[in-house]
């Protein structure tokens, strides 16, 4: 890709977030899409590329009244939207379409019009994991952490600090689910879910959606919004079964996707003003900081605990409060992207002053997939 060849010109979340039993899942996609089209001053007739995860893109295109010449149904979990951006850049650069709409909607809490599973079932899981009593995500996404703790010195108190610091960021956001401050003791005294993970180290389960509109950068000035340029992108996949992760102290998908994104953007870590790392659970920012190369092995826990990522710290991280405090519908990646866009537009309620480069890093499945997007507001 060519850095900054594509711009995000429309971005919006659903009108409401949280508990939305009166809105079915497809309408969550559509509500966000309509908001994003309004943001960009477009209608469905102006869109010729569609991408979504968890639903067939044809369902969304037809529901919204779009006639696509390009579609992407990559559905590998919550980072699918980062990967859609990468694919959309390739499509826009090569002229396969002109204006791409990426939608997310998920009735994670109310299950109104929800489908069976947003991620493909796989036979590794059916034969070699489910029989052992792994159930919902907290009982399996958490499996690598004991190894991480023994091998790198990560502590459970440092994991608790991830939740504490992100709550500080959530306090800035009127739309965040949880905004009241919490302490390490609060986290350590919350209900045990899957040792060593307690409830406040686990993401929310809420309803919502989000949408993005992308076009070539040479058209970006025709739109009413401040353009946010896609400077770099990366993606990768590892195993659909967490037991088959090659190294439980480091994600191959994170390392691969992150390096691709940094290399394609032509940036170094010191250039990054703002960072989002998909946090379904408190250990994800730890793995992300180390696998993206912001800190060395075993350094991410102390880095967060010492305050480097909190408001006023040198590396603002998960400034919407993340999946732990802002919202988490199931495939949270879209909300991380929305916060990166807000930061690059300069309109986040937790705005990082003067931020010019944002890195938005996603996970899909249980360390199954990864997508990374580098955004900038400098053409």
């Amino acid at each position, binding site marked *: 890709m060519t850095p900054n060849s594509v711009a995000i010109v429309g971005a919006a979340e659903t009108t409401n977030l949280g508990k939305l039993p009166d809105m079915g899942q497809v309408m969550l996609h559509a509500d966000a899409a309509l908001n994003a089209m309004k943001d960009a001053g477009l209608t469905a007739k102006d869109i010729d590329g569609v991408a979504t995860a968890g639903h067939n893109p044809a369902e969304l295109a037809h529901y919204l009244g779009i006639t696509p010449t390009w579609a992407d149904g990559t559905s590998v979990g919550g980072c699918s939207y980062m990967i859609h951006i990468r694919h959309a850049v390739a499509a826009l650069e090569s002229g396969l379409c002109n204006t791409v709409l990426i939608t997310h909607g998920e009735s994670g809490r109310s299950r109104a019009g929800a489908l069976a599973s947003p991620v493909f079932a796989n*036979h*590794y899981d*059916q*034969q*070699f*994991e*489910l*029989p*052992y*009593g*792994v*159930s*919902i995500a*907290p*009982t*399996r996404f*958490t*499996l*690598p*952490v*004991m*190894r991480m703790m*023994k091998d790198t010195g990560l502590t459970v108190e440092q994991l608790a600090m991830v939740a504490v610091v992100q709550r500080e960021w959530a306090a800035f956001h009127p739309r965040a689910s949880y905004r009241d401050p919490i302490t390490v003791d609060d986290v350590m005294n919350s*209900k*045990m*879910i*899957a*040792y*060593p*993970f307690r409830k406040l180290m686990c993401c929310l389960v809420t309803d919502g959606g989000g949408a993005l509109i992308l076009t070539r950068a040479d058209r970006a000035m025709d739109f009413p919004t401040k353009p946010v340029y896609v400077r770099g992108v990366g993606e990768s996949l590892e195993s659909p*079964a967490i*037991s*088959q992760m090659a190294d*439980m102290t480091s994600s191959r998908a994170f390392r691969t996707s992150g390096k691709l994104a940094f290399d394609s953007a032509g940036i170094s870590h010191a250039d990054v003003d703002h960072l989002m790392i998909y946090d379904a659970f408190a250990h994800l920012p730890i793995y992300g900081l180390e696998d993206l190369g912001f800190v060395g092995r075993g350094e991410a826990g102390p880095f967060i605990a010492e305050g480097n990522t909190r408001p006023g710290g040198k590396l603002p991280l998960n400034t919407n409060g993340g999946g732990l405090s802002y919202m988490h519908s199931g495939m949270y990646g879209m909300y991380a992207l929305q916060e990166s866009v807000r930061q690059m537009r300069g309109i986040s309620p937790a705005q990082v002053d003067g931020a010019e480069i944002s890195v938005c890093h996603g996970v899909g499945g249980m360390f199954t997939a990864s997508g990374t997007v580098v955004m900038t507001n400098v053409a």
Partner: protein
Amino acid sequence: MTDRFVPKPTPETRHYWDGAKAGELRLQRCTACQQTYFPPRPFCPECGSRSVAVYTASGNGTLYSYIINNIGAPGREPPFAVAIVELEEGPRLMSNIVECDQTPEALVLDMPLEVTFEVLTDEITLPQFKPAKGA
């Protein structure tokens, strides 16, 4: 019958489940590059060779990582440990740790384990791991 989740073998995994029913942990090894791999498939994921052989593993392994499920699962009463076992032959697989207290004090990383078998149904027996004798 059981409320537990019961795996359905596929043609490519049948030898594994037949082995478990016979009280053996069966792995596959590439006869070209000698790599042992898991989950089962009729070719080597390292070198692509279709020349692979099924053999009976030692059944020895160590506790690589785990969680203790406190919220339950179909047919399972919490708390119970879900573990990743690293086999002597190299691959890792998911297991429960049976014949052992389901506590952090009893479940110590890198402790030696040995395979045992849990009958789920007439058709399916599940490989499981327990603390190794004399450990």
